């Protein structure tokens, strides 16, 4: 299927796993060893025999596994640039070649006396090739569930926009300034259009963090139109984040949550604090807002937060963290994700 290359093919379901992601590496190591263990159990004649067989097969398996992972780690960017099917073929060939190479280099070390060296090598090449195919299918399925989660996020963002509470109150607020301050009313309608556009956008790409920040500010300025001084915001953004990429609709739904549950129920209003910073190779997002504890979370918002967690998990695996701290008078969401730069994909 001919398709324009995007800077982050990795996000599309038709993409190889990111071989530099700690989570992907862990999954590969665990699954391969798990299958080897099952094979040992299937052939064994006693419990001791299971261990013996597993150790025997490990002598060959681990070098193949580790050198494959090392090579894939190094070639990750080059592989990601290939079309999906070419990439898949390349990965399978790589693993098969490594298997053959190690089998022949090891020679007598691996093949038992009764076994022909060349039969041993080709049998293992077939097995490792087949295992690679299975793993790639598994990663493709995982990636497909990411695209579903992303669609859900857009749908939810759209639903939040269309949520009568937001839509009608905002239209009402815009109407109230049309006569007195037409310029401000114009800006408000433009902001609203941008918010809807983002939620309806079909792109699966990562977006520039500064675009997400801009969108979030537009959202807050719309809410300010209604809430006035009750809504206070404080932003703390690292300079080093200008070129960072983030999954779309990560920050803005958090702010929506903060306004609806934190600020609106308080007649004196409150402060929403947003902090974005880079620590080493990590990007940290913090959103903090006042909150009355007894006010339970609204269902729609709970879904939006759940979806952010799910998307982080699918996309970054163990490299992203999502934590919520809910105190007596405040609510604090912390997101940690790998710092990804724009050029990295170009």
């Amino acid at each position: 299927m001919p398709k324009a290359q995007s800077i982050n093919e990795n996000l599309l379901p038709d993409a190889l796993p990111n071989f530099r992601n700690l989570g992907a590496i862990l999954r590969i190591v665990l699954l391969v060893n798990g299958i080897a263990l099952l094979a040992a159990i299937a052939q064994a004649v006693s419990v001791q025999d299971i261990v013996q067989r597993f150790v025997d097969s490990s002598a060959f398996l681990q070098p193949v596994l580790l050198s494959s992972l090392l090579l894939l780690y190094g070639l990750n960017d080059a592989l990601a640039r290939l079309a999906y099917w070419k990439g898949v073929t390349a990965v399978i060939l790589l693993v098969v070649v490594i298997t053959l190479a190690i089998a022949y280099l090891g020679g007598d070390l691996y093949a038992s006396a009764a076994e022909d060296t060349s039969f041993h090598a080709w049998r293992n090449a077939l097995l490792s090739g087949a295992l690679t195919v299975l793993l790639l299918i598994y990663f493709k399925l995982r990636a497909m569930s990411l695209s579903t989660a992303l669609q859900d996020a857009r749908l939810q963002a759209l639903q939040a926009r269309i949520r009568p509470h937001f839509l009608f109150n905002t239209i009402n607020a815009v109407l109230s300034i049309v006569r007195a301050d037409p310029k401000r009313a114009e800006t408000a309608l433009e902001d609203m259009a941008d918010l809807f556009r983002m939620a309806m956008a079909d792109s699966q790409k990562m977006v520039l963090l500064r675009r997400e920040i801009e969108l979030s500010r537009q959202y807050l300025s719309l809410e300010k139109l209604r809430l006035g001084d009750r809504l206070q915001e404080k932003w703390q953004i690292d300079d080093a984040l200008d070129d960072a990429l983030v999954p779309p609709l990560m920050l803005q739904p958090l702010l929506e949550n903060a306004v609806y549950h934190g600020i609106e129920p308080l007649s004196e209003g409150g402060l929403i604090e947003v902090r974005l910073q880079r620590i080493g190779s990590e990007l940290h997002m913090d959103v903090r807002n006042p909150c009355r504890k007894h006010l339970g979370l609204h269902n729609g918002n709970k879904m939006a937060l759940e979806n952010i967690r799910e998307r982080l998990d699918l996309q970054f695996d163990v490299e992203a963290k999502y934590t919520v701290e809910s105190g007596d008078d405040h609510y604090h969401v912390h997101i940690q994700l790998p710092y990804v730069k724009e050029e990295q994909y170009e």
Partner: protein
Amino acid sequence: MNNVDLPLTVFIVDDETPARHRIKELLSDCGAQISLELIGEASNGREALEQLSVQHADVVLVDIRMPEMDGIELAQHLNKLDKPPVIIFTTAYDNYAIQAFEQHAIDYLLKPIRLGRLFEALTRARAAVPVKSEVLQELTPEPRKNLSIQERGKILLIPIERVLYLRAELKYITVRTVEREYLVEEPLGALEKEFAARFVRIHRNCLVAKEEIESFEKMGEDGADSHWSVKLRGLDERLPISRRQQFIVKEFKKF
């Protein structure tokens, strides 16, 4: 109700400044055809109640979702005034309430409010009858946050979390807080239903706040005549538990 020549006095309650501003613009647009006077505005139910207990308004335009005290609770308290105003609810969206409005033919305006609809509602207002309190209670699944009492022409609010017990005596209900007693005129059964989360019935005529129960004490001699009573935090008084309600002593010991 009023003399038709007098201007209709209007009061606005909404927590959003632009929403109040919008209504004011529309009211001045209506001004050409109907004689109106805007006598005040408030940003939540509590403020509105304070102002409206000293100053009468014919019509109060009330937003439903507000911090501090929502519009429905405000309406319930306003009903206690000597001359309750006609209440017109305004809301951007509130599925639950709107169904109830339709059912009881209560006037409401959907935001953004249209000039024509506001005009109609105001024209009808002079002939409107205040909505009954029982109906207002149906408008929301939430219990009130306060009980209101009319005392010397003013409305007093007693936050429900300060109430220790409610006891029916003859025509009135005694509402007891740590500081003092008040009298309200509401059926005990309705209060029990509304505030089921806070109170438990210990006697045919008495509801006590579950959280405030300090201890249970056995009264009288052991034997057939003995019965339990409740001591509440901050009160010396012992409230008897009727024979039929004795089981709550056991239930509470489980906690």
